[in-house]
């Protein structure tokens, strides 16, 4: 080899940067133009006043934020956290064993099981929620099969059922990815060294899949927290979540400034959660 072939191309770092930029730019442009810019426009309303007949009066004010700490709105926020939290916990308790089981299947069955998990997404979300109404309503299928008069619909429990049903696949998939990657030899080594199956799970499998657990939890929590369709349809509007509150401000109350303030609060909660997630994932 001559010394010339040893010399590297002019600036590899720059080339890589250029490639990265070229590959990322469609996605970045999309995000900036269609998400960040509109979001910033909507959120900027939080600092202005509502006009007498709706609309925005461009006079700086912080009164929207003072309104936010009203116990009424804090209780709605708390209720949303509670419902989304319960949903996430249940999704984890159901999703982890499911993902674990799928990861142990033979290769062909794995594919079938994963397709079955995402299959519901092929049907429109609203149609699937209406199916739940037909199942759970007073004269619905469950009551007529059991011959009972149970009150199943239009309560918080029904909201959790709907959210859990809708977002469970988002828990299973990242968990499956994390468990599938696990080297089986680690568990064999743990067993050889005398650990019980439970100890192996607690000391080897679980810690190594924590990043997957956190990702799954976030995937379920975020859309549950901001949902407003399911509380409307399955909750019968008898309890409201922050998503409903935001919807009302924009579509009924013509109070964009306060709607934007609520949106800002929602995003702030989610950013805190993202930070907790990435912090926990790094420690794991």
């Amino acid at each position, binding site marked *: 080899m001559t010394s010339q072939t040893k010399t590297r191309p002019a600036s590899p770092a720059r080339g890589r940067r250029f490639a990265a930029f070229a590959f990322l730019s469609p996605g970045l442009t999309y995000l900036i133009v269609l998400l960040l810019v*509109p979001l910033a426009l909507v959120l900027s309303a939080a600092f202005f006043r509502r006009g*007498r*007949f709706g609309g925005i009066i461009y006079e700086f004010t912080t009164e929207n934020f003072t309104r936010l700490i009203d116990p009424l709105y804090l209780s709605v926020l708390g209720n949303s956290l509670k419902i989304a939290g319960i949903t996430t916990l249940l999704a984890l308790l159901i999703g982890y064993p499911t993902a674990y089981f799928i990861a142990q299947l033979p290769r062909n069955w794995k594919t079938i099981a994963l397709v079955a998990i995402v299959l519901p997404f092929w049907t429109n979300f609203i149609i699937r929620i209406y199916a739940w109404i037909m199942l759970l309503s007073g004269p619905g299928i469950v009551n007529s099969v059991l011959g009972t008069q149970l009150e199943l619909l239009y309560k918080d429990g029904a909201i959790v059922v709907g959210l859990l049903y809708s977002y469970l696949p*988002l828990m299973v998939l990242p968990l499956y990815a994390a468990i599938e990657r696990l080297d089986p030899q680690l568990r064999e080594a743990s067993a050889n060294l005398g650990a019980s199956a439970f100890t192996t799970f607690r000391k080897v499998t679980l810690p190594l899949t924590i990043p997957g657990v956190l990702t799954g939890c976030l*995937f379920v929590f975020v*859309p549950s927290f901001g949902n407003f369709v399911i509380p409307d349809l399955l909750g019968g509007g008898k309890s409201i979540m922050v998503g*409903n509150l935001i*919807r009302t401000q924009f*579509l009924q109350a*013509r109070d964009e400034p306060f709607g934007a303030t609520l949106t800002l609060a929602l995003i702030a909660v989610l950013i805190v959660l993202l930070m907790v997630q990435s912090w926990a994932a790094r420690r794991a």
Partner: protein
Amino acid sequence: MFRTRFTRRLPAAVAVAGLALAAAACGGGGESTSTGAEAAPSASAAQLNANADLSKQSLQVTVWDGYTPKELPDKVKQDLKVSNVKINLHDTNETAMKKLAVPGDSGIDVAFVSGQYAQALWEQGLLEPIHPELIPNLSNLYPEATQLSYDKGNKYSVPYTWGTTGICYRSDLVKAEPTSWNDILKPPAWAQKKVTMMTTERWLALPALKALGYSVNTDKDDEIAKAKELLVAAKQNLLGYDDTTFGDKLKSGEAVMVEAWDGWCPTTDPKKNIKFVVPKEGSDLWVDTMVIMKSSKNKEAAHALINYILDPKIHGWAAENINYKVPNKAAMDAVKVPEGSLLGIKPAELLNGESIRDLGEASTKYTRLSTEVQAQ
């Protein structure tokens, strides 16, 4: 307002899209505009020429989907010789307001909005006064339809449809016919958990305000507080809140009594077991109106369009096809009222209802009331 159908989006399958959804749920961008409260209604009406050449004018109309005949634009073009007619759709009064309350020219000539929204547009100085000499068909209206409280004498709006709110119920499932708002606020044992109410703010408050003998337009804090107490107590006996599918809940028997807009109560169902009653304490009178924008450059054509719609043959279409009463005597006289239909309610009965007015700043009290009741 009473068509709060909103697009429910399919939540995307990733967390990032979840965030996007939160933003999407917030509706349109920041193009919304300052709507100065202080702007006084302009008294000066444009000089209009009754013999203007309409073929040099074109019209843009904004209206609810399915609210006017599909062939209307073509017929108007043909019969009025207007150069072009474009129909825009809005799904709620609120989206219409967003379109119309912009500085300068919204491009819209004629808008269909509910009475209290017409009032709000007028008070902002955005409407052209109606020139009655250009709308001879105004004489087809019931005399009552010219004395609506938000716009006595049709100064700036022409009514298109009207109706009221009451109790829609299953005559075969109720043990006693409802007569009072208290029948849904404090339902007897056989109706408990089989009653729905509406959530759209003013109609959430309406049964309680009327049961207490207050005005539907009250802005008194103590009256609203008393209504809230009653509504919170009523909540425990409700099946749920429902603005859109209460008719289906009645048909399935899930509900036996619901608060409903008359046009939405399926009284013409073939089983003939659904009826509608206006409670004895009274109710509201809602009116959907046609207005002409001050910014319109086609005001003669806009008046001609309204005159055209007031023709009994055209106006009767709404009664026959969307089952809403129209305030047009000539049209209603010609309409065949099917058995069980609510089209038979007389204007005099309707006029007992109180029209809902825009309350300006006080309207936030109702938003808060409905949030408080729902969050309880």
